[in-house]
């Protein structure tokens, strides 16, 4: 319980103005270390799902979940088990690729990583890739040699495996 690690917290919240501010504000005020937060609609009408990546030991995580649960607009909170969770992130990478051989290399890398080229410019290619944050990091590292113009990442979202829901 005491090791410091990143936890993936999935929270079902009321889809209301200000709810993101309530959650984000809580993290700042309590001094919790937030690495990432994504918000989107959920399977239930009027509810949104937040996926929060936070760093800390077991005690910190317990406080985070308890404090989140105290917010009136938060319905459910769960710390997803790392071994039993599917985690994905979408990333768009604009690569400097003005010449033919660079372009084909970028396309090859994208294929190996099961990415796609979604935009072709005179001097750039934009790669779309989905995967775990590690996989995305790996592709970014490879593409860096060509010169990356811009990166846009969604941050990871996650869901537990099997029948379990929150």
């Amino acid at each position, binding site marked *: 319980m005491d090791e410091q690690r990143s936890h993936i917290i999935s929270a079902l*919240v*009321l889809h209301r103005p*200000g709810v993101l*501010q*309530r959650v984000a*504000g*809580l993290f700042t*005020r309590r001094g919790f270390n937030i690495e990432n937060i994504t918000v989107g609609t959920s399977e239930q009408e009027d509810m949104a799902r937040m996926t929060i990546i936070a760093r800390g030991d077991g*005690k910190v995580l*317990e*406080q985070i979940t*308890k*404090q989140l*649960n*105290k*917010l*009136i*607009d*938060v*319905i459910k909170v769960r710390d997803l088990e790392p071994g039993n969770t599917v985690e994905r992130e979408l990333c768009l990478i604009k690569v400097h690729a003005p010449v033919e051989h660079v372009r084909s290399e970028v396309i090859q890398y994208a294929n190996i990583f099961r990415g796609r080229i979604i935009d072709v410019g005179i001097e750039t290619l934009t790669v779309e890739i989905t995967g775990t944050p590690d996989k995305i990091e790996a592709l970014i590292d490879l593409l860096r040699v060509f010169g990356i113009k811009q990166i846009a990442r969604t941050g990871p979202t996650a869901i537990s495996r099997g029948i379990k829901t929150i």
Partner: protein
Amino acid sequence: MKGGEAIIKSLQDHGVDVVFGYPGGVLLPLYDVIYDSDLKHILVRHEQCAAHAADGYARASGKVGVCIGTSGPGATNLITGIATAYMDSSPIIAIAGQVGTSLIGNDAFQEVDTLGITMPITKHNFQAMKADEIPGMIKAGFYIAETGRPGPIVLDLPKDVQEEEFNYKTDVKIDLPGYKPTKKGHPLQIKKAAKLILDSKKPVILAGGGVIHSKSSEELIRLSELISAPVTTTLMGKGSFPEDHKLSLGMLGMHGRKVANIVVDECDCLIAIGCRFSDRTTGNVGEFASKAKIIHIDVDPAEIGKNVDVDVPIVGDAKNTLISLTRNIIKIKTTTKNVNNTNKWTGYISDFKNNCRPRISFEDVPLKPQQVIKEIMESIDNDTIVTTDVGQNQMWMAHYFTSKIPRTFLSSGGLGTMGFGFPAAMGAKVALPESDVVAVCGDGGFLMVCQELATIKEYDIPIVVCVFDNRYLGMVAQWQKLFYDGRISHTRLGEVPDFVKLAEAFGVKGERVERPGEMKETLKNALKSGEPTLIDVTIDPDEILPMVPPGCGLTEIVGEYKVERESPGEIPYVKTTSRSRGD
């Protein structure tokens, strides 16, 4: 019906008969409704005091207090009072005016993001963007404020929403899927706690404000007598257990009673009820009750394990949990003949307590605060409500004043808000006009809110304000004396004002007390007169409280601990500076 009418109607439907407020531009529609309404409105002279008064009203009566302030500066002036209520879990509803919905976000005149500002200091807050949301928000506001761990609610109310017409329905339904406070403690955990208590030889109970909120003082007394466990309290718990009871140890913590601090250090089982282990209560957490198994009962799960690691956590309302815990203990006692033998422990504590009674009688001039408090205790009834301000006056009261009844000792514990005592007393008196109300303030804190003398005069709210006048910001000066080489940096207040003349300027009776015996007579007369009175008490600026320096363990008390010996014999344990001690 108009939005503004719906506010007043909804408040009255929830039993509100008085509000503390201050009008302003965007509140004109609401105040136009109040003009025709039979809701009593008390015009304070600063919005901060509206919030403190609503807070004092709530603390004294247990009912939700309501305050109103306009947009922008009105709302920001309410903030200190809202944060005070939040830290001490006091149920208030603060209604803040807001600029019209079409202007929100434009940096309009007197616009401020009230919702954003109050998010971290409220249990929940609402912004009504349409009039038909108002009844539901008020209903949900009351429900959230009063249930579970109580706390303040803010309702942000744009001007046009107050004017909007809509169809008012009386039985509005509220749906709060994310709010389900736990009421009953887990039976298995309670059983575990009962066993632990019966196995202990040196149990101690620590009672916090939660005992008062859940109205479980009787249950607390029953438990403590059943297991012969002494009871210490936090500042917020003062009054939850009668301090003249033989098992009472008084307050724990930085300025707590020596007997409480040392007994908690020595105990083998600490039963903490409705408290949050604030740093002012525990001292150095690493050394806190280090020989004890800790049982923690609290309605707020987030408080359990936050500051202190506990052995048996129980999430639940204090009243239900105490009833069930007591039942379990009786059951185990009768079926297993397990009688917790604490005779040696209670005998030791009773000797310790008798030999370590803090001295309160002094003949000195200038007056010692202890002597003043003694005379206050001699002149009031058991059910007189006393409020304190923050600083030395507060800790003198917490340390030396004997509180016997819940909701009669009101003090800003968590936020430590100077200026709380006087307006809170005003609110308490409005809530309970039949009770005497005495505010004990320092000269610094009182001056921050002295304009409310106008309010108590205009509305004839006959409270007595005792200003402990040493011309210092005493607590900060004390720390400067003890920890900053006596470098008294900006804590000397100088010679002005003359508090008696200040009171008289507002038409309030002013008295001055300088010698032993005078306080008793003056206070008695003031209470009898039924008039608002200010008593300026000149006290000794050199008097210092016994204290545990910040970051130290609870037994490391500095400052002379003057005791009033009534029975001969040695104090069982008098060493106060060593860290390591055996059993």
